[in-house]
């Protein structure tokens, strides 16, 4: 590691940050905070959580350091016991493509006018969606 005369080691460390790596660290810490807050809200101890999940209390402590790389199944079990959401993949396929097509209106003199229809679609519950600007299609996600 080369540092210039007046640059501190801290400045050098900061200059070499990898934003992708940082995002991972932040995410892991976020999960730990979420678990800790849920435990507090439920009045549950780490030991009680360990018992419900069939884990050792030391493992729960390790989770709460904010440095742990969880497996999917562990996150799934934790969110079930604590009634929180740690995973965000409830729908694994596109259910329906909702397409809004422009409506073409022709006038008597054959002048074409294209109007985009405004449609209101109501679902039974809120379903998150994404809009693709490329093909002007809406995807349920």
């Amino acid at each position: 590691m080369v540092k210039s005369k007046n640059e501190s080691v801290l400045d050098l460390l900061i200059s070499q940050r990898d934003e992708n790596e940082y995002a991972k660290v932040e995410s892991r810490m976020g999960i730990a905070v979420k678990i800790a807050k849920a435990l507090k809200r439920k009045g549950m101890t780490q030991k009680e959580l360990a018992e419900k999940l069939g884990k050792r209390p030391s493992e729960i402590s390790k989770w709460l350091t904010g440095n742990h790389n969880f497996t999917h199944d562990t996150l799934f079990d934790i969110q079930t016991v604590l009634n929180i959401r740690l995973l965000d993949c409830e729908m694994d396929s596109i259910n329906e493509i909702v397409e809004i097509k422009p409506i073409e209106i022709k006038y008597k003199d054959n002048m074409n006018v294209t109007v985009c229809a405004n449609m209101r679609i109501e679902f039974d519950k809120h379903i998150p969606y994404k809009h693709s600007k490329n093909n002007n299609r809406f995807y349920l996600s």
Partner: protein
Amino acid sequence: MEVNIVRIEQYSGDKAIFYSAIVDDDKETLFEKFLKENIELYGNELRNIDYRIRAI
């Protein structure tokens, strides 16, 4: 032994302030010394510390 508290600007912001200490007439904080001593052998660990402090 005289200890002075120094604010570490690189980590300080609206929600939290990070301090280190300078002992006697030293020019570097204890944190800076710690980084210097360990950066060659434990660079990855120090980077992790940097990210975690930043996240806090």
